[in-house]
């Protein structure tokens, strides 16, 4: 048991700095956002209270419940994280070693605690507004996926900002298969999702080849391909995949839609969460993932160790492309937007790739961290409409706040830097 507590403490220590930095950047963003509200005569406190409605918080009890959920969720992730990270040394995998009484009891304890925390969280959800909560979850799906694109790239030392174009391509691919092909129910859904991921990865392939073979910087190639997709997809929608409505794709057939769970949330969220977990396992629990991260951390060491840098870069591009393609699919076959169609203005998918950058940065380039960051930003994006309904504050302010958060997190060692700055100020003001 003491070993388990040690493991938890160790995990918390590794979690503390990134978490504190993300929260600090969030605070900066919200403060600057408040400044912009004040500058134009709005009340920032009331604005932010309205924004909380996007998280499903309508009452004080709801607010307290969310605080409790955050605390419990932190406990849960800490627990699972500690178990997951340190268990081989501390308690041993029960199925690898001989099963002893100790390992059985420890597993039982872990399962019991996890179930108990999940039960508590489910009780806390009673205090929240179900519709807005589901809406928030629906918002978070594409965001956590595009965050993967950027995060995996950064882990391999690649600045892959091509998610935007890959999202468009994935969305239009899903709209094509989902709207124009007649297939049996289960297969259709699977084929549509898989094809969208495939097309997303195919769109990421060109920058990957250019990077690997000719050394073309990926920022340049991915930016250019984003804009190529921006003009390619509307053409496809209008001239190739049009349906009964003008400037929209054909309506997605019912066999290719994910079942709706409530509000605009569909079962695609489970696919997205599974994708995050799969990427996590791929990066941290397989050899290829280890090589990929090593290439990002120290390419020279990787080359010396005989790791193929090209292969690692290619893998990171392909994972990113698949995730972005899935994000595009989640907006066409996984959400009843525009009556299950994709508009030629790209209004339902525009910006997802850019926001994914911010979410990946806040989630510290970690797929699991990305889930939480995506929930946070999804709640803010969802809450922006309440800001507009209640007080007339333009909902786009949230995007600006997000930009500030990204700018703040671009500074490495944000907390240490700001602490040093404060100290310097104190010295200057001090007796001298």
């Amino acid at each position, binding site marked *: 048991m003491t070993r388990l507590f040690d493991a938890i403490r160790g995990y918390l220590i590794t979690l503390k700095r990134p978490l504190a930095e993300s929260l600090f950047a969030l605070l900066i963003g919200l403060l600057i956002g408040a400044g912009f509200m004040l500058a*134009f005569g709005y009340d920032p406190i009331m604005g932010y209270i309205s924004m909380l409605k996007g998280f499903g918080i309508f009452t004080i009890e709801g607010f307290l419940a969310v605080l409790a959920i955050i605390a419990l969720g932190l406990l849960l992730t800490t627990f699972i994280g500690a178990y997951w990270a340190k268990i081989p040394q501390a308690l041993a995998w029960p199925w690898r070693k001989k099963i002893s009484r100790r390992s059985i009891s420890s597993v039982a304890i872990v399962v019991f605690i996890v179930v108990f925390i999940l039960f508590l969280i489910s009780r806390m959800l009673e205090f929240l507004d179900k519709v807005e909560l589901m809406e928030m979850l629906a918002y978070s799906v594409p965001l956590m996926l595009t965050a993967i694109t950027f995060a995996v790239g950064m882990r391999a030392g690649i600045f892959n900002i091509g998610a935007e174009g890959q999202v468009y391509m994935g969305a239009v691919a899903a709209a094509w298969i989902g709207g124009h092909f007649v297939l049996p129910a289960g297969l259709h859904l699977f084929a549509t999702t898989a094809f969208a991921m495939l097309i997303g990865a195919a769109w990421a392939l060109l920058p990957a080849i250019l990077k690997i073979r000719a050394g073309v910087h990926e920022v340049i190639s991915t930016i250019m391909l984003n804009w190529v997709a921006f003009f*390619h997809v509307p053409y496809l929608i209008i001239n190739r995949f049009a349906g009964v409505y003008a400037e929209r794709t054909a309506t997605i057939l019912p066999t290719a839609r994910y079942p709706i769970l409530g509000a605009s949330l569909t079962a695609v969220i489970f696919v997205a969460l599974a994708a995050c977990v799969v990427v996590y396992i791929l990066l941290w629990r397989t050899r290829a993932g280890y090589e990929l991260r090593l290439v990002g951390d120290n390419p020279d060491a990787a080359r010396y160790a005989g790791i193929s840098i090209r292969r690692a870069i290619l893998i990171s591009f392909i994972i990113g492309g698949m995730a972005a393609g899935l994000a595009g699919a989640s907006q066409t076959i996984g959400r009843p937007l525009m009556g299950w169609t994709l508009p030629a203005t790209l209004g339902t998918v525009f910006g997802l790739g850019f926001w994914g950058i911010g979410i990946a940065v806040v989630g510290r380039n970690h797929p699991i961290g990305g889930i939480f960051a995506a929930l946070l930003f999804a709640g803010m994006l969802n809450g922006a409409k309440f800001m507009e309904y209640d007080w007339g504050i333009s909902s786009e302010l949230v995007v*600006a706040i997000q930009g500030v958060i990204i700018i703040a997190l671009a500074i490495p060692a944000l907390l240490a830097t700001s602490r040093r700055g404060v100290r310097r100020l104190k010295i200057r003001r001090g007796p001298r």
Partner: protein
Amino acid sequence: MRILAWLQRKKILGRLISVVAVLVFILYLLWAHDLLRVELFEYTVRALTENWKALLLSTSLLATPLTLAAVGECINERAGLFNIGLEGIFFLSVVIGVRGAEIIGSGVAGLLVGLLTGALIGFIFSVLAVYLRANQLVLGMGINIFAMGMLAYLLATIWAFPGIHSVRQEFHIPKMLGFFTPVFFVAVIAAILAHILIHRTLFGIRIRAAGEKPEAVDVAGVRVDRIRILACTVGAALAGLGGAFFALGWFGEIVKEMAVGMGFIALAVVVVAGLEPLLALAIAFVFGFVRALADWVATMPGINAVLPGAFYIMHMVPFLVTILVVTIFIGRRRFPRALGKPYIRE
């Protein structure tokens, strides 16, 4: 096989594969847009011969912000700062420039306000990048996203009318001879001055050295941080001037989607030009011309029935050309060695 080995030894094989990949990609686009046909050339020739004057006018309008932003970006990339927030600078300086014009009551003052806005953003960018060693790419994307939200927010709050705002007629920059906009000449002069600055002055040598080998500049007793901050401020100021020009010298209104993509075309211009301001001027003109042609072809009667993909493919041309040029010339057009890297004194 021997040819293959020779190619590999000369390191041509990789580039050959890449070029083939890009060409296949372009062919795919042409095929997907149903454009492997003769009509495209016929229509292009018709557009060129019938309306070259109007095309030239819209080219000069399009090339102005592109040139200004590209020349500015050339200067700060020479100094080692890679600012991909050009689009964000456009967005912010559009709104603030127009607001400035309305408060001060003059269109030229509006352009100057836009210039100052750009300078301020560049200053903040460079201070964060130089002193706090921020990741310049993340920073640039952050500026883009911030500006995307801020443009819509300011539009909705300042003029209380979401999405669009018309600028009053008296604030428009008058066109010379009813044809060229004077800002275009400013852009041309800026390109020439930037060329002289970079290649003919001591400060230009310092800027280039700060991008190539900041250690050497530091050893020579010159402050790297100041050079970089100054270069980035000047560069972003030019982009800000271009941004204000959108509303005051061209459209006469602010629309949310007005400058979408233009910042990235400017970035493409810089990349293709290989950081040469005069070349950037020429390439901005070419890209502006292609885009003007695209808009012209789109409004041509009957073309949508025959060639529906022409409009879209022409909008892609700057981006495709950039990819192709970068792939072919990447070895010859070398970028500063310290581009994008913070300088840490040891």
